[in-house]
């Protein structure tokens, strides 16, 4: 990709550093009245979310990364790849296990996911912020507690384990925040 002068950096630009794409989240200039100008950027690794500060001469150049975020509909998995379809062009793409990572447990067929394409290959797959999933296993023994004070672990379809209130039972569908992995509410039909 293009080499871009650091003085042209803006929030949201994607940089290529050690073959990994990073997102610029903050740009500021440090300029002594008489002297070399420096640009300080905060960048976030698109995969790991790690945030790093970098300071360079404003006259330096850095490589930008070919990164695009697009919404795709999740179709199915075959054990090796996860398959997604573009809702308008019906183009299908296959995402590696690595790109889906831990998010695999939140993938529900037909749900819309945000797929980050890096060099036109799926690099990160982000599920919707909230998904509705059925409880396939939890301890049924505890009843009658509606205070919500305590909790118990529950296994959901897809394999995620979340803490749920004691009164929620096997077979019920719950709404979960995929960003935190936390229970939100029961979903009634």
């Amino acid at each position: 990709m293009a080499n871009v002068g650091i003085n042209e950096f803006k929030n949201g630009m994607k940089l290529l550093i050690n073959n990994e794409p990073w997102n610029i989240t903050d740009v500021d200039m440090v300029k002594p009245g008489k002297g070399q100008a420096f640009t300080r950027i905060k960048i976030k690794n698109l995969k790991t979310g790690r945030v790093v500060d970098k300071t360079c001469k404003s006259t330096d150049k850095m490589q930008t990364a070919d990164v695009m975020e697009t919404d795709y509909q999740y179709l199915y998995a075959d054990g090796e790849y996860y398959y997604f379809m573009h809702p308008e062009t019906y183009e299908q793409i296959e995402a590696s296990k690595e790109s889906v990572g831990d998010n695999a447990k939140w993938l529900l067929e037909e749900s819309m996911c945000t797929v980050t394409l890096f060099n036109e290959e799926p690099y990160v797959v982000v599920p919707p912020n909230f998904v509705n999933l059925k409880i396939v296993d939890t301890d049924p023994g505890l009843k009658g507690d509606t205070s919500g004070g305590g909790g118990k672990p529950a296994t959901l379809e897809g394999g995620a384990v979340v803490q749920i209130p004691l009164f929620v039972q096997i077979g019920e569908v719950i709404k979960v925040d995929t960003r935190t992995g936390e229970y939100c509410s029961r979903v009634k039909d």
Partner: protein
Amino acid sequence: MNSDWKSQCPLQTLKQRAFLMSKIREYFAHHNVLEVETPILSSAGNTDVNIESFTSQSINLDCSKSYLRTSPEFPLKRLLCSGIGDIFEIGKVFRKEEISKTHNIEFTMLEWYRVDFDYKQLIQDVIDLLKFIFSAFSQPFENVETLTFNQSFQQFLSIDLSLVTDTQLNTYCANFGYSGSQLSRDEALDFLFATQIQTKLNKENLTFITLYPASQAALSQINPHDPSTSLRFEVFYRGQELGNGYQELTDSQELLERFKVDNQKRQTQGKQMVDVDCRLLATMENGMPACSGIAVGLDRLLMVLLGCKTIEEVLSFNAGNS
């Protein structure tokens, strides 16, 4: 974007800005320093390697383009050479690519010159002016601290500039988060000063940093007692840079040499060379009076007076919506 026709600054701030200007004029009237106006568009530019000028169409027969001034320094010095005495100017100056929380591409500069003042007398003049202005704004004016450039490196970084090598300076910069291309000695000093020293300058004090390295003399005299330093100083208020002053270089031959060195550096860095001010050099050949001068950013001064964190809080409109 929808409401960017509005001024982003409270109208009260604009009234305080006008009050600041009136107080500065009052101070200089009281001290018999004459207000002058000089051209904003000039056929010669500033060769300083780290300052970029806007250019426009030619304005007279002997130039192919013109420059928007980055400071009124050259025409003011031409007036000094013609014997005008102490002068000041308040006006807009322009610097390309300078955008940050404390930079706007065009800003208001106060520049003044005192004939027969050495830099220490000028520092006292700066203190007197700021004392006058701070009291007019009912702001406390705390202690004043003066450190030489070398002392500041010793005090805040335990670096002895007479001993430290360029490689060691680059290592310090890397340890303090620099990750760009190799730095020259002056660039490394700029980085360390701006990120490690300026930010720690005593938060309650007005700080003067004096005797910058000779390689950063700009247009100041080389220190006659120590040729490794220059008679240049900067003034900071709670770590915010407000102004840059010199005991002025008056030798036209040496000035021409510095312009040439600047342009050579520009060439090696792939920057545009700048037309030097031949009229300034010609006037100086007839003798320039011994003097000291300083440029102060008035937007920044208003920021510190009003406790604003960003420059746009004190501008009617900024580069983003002008």
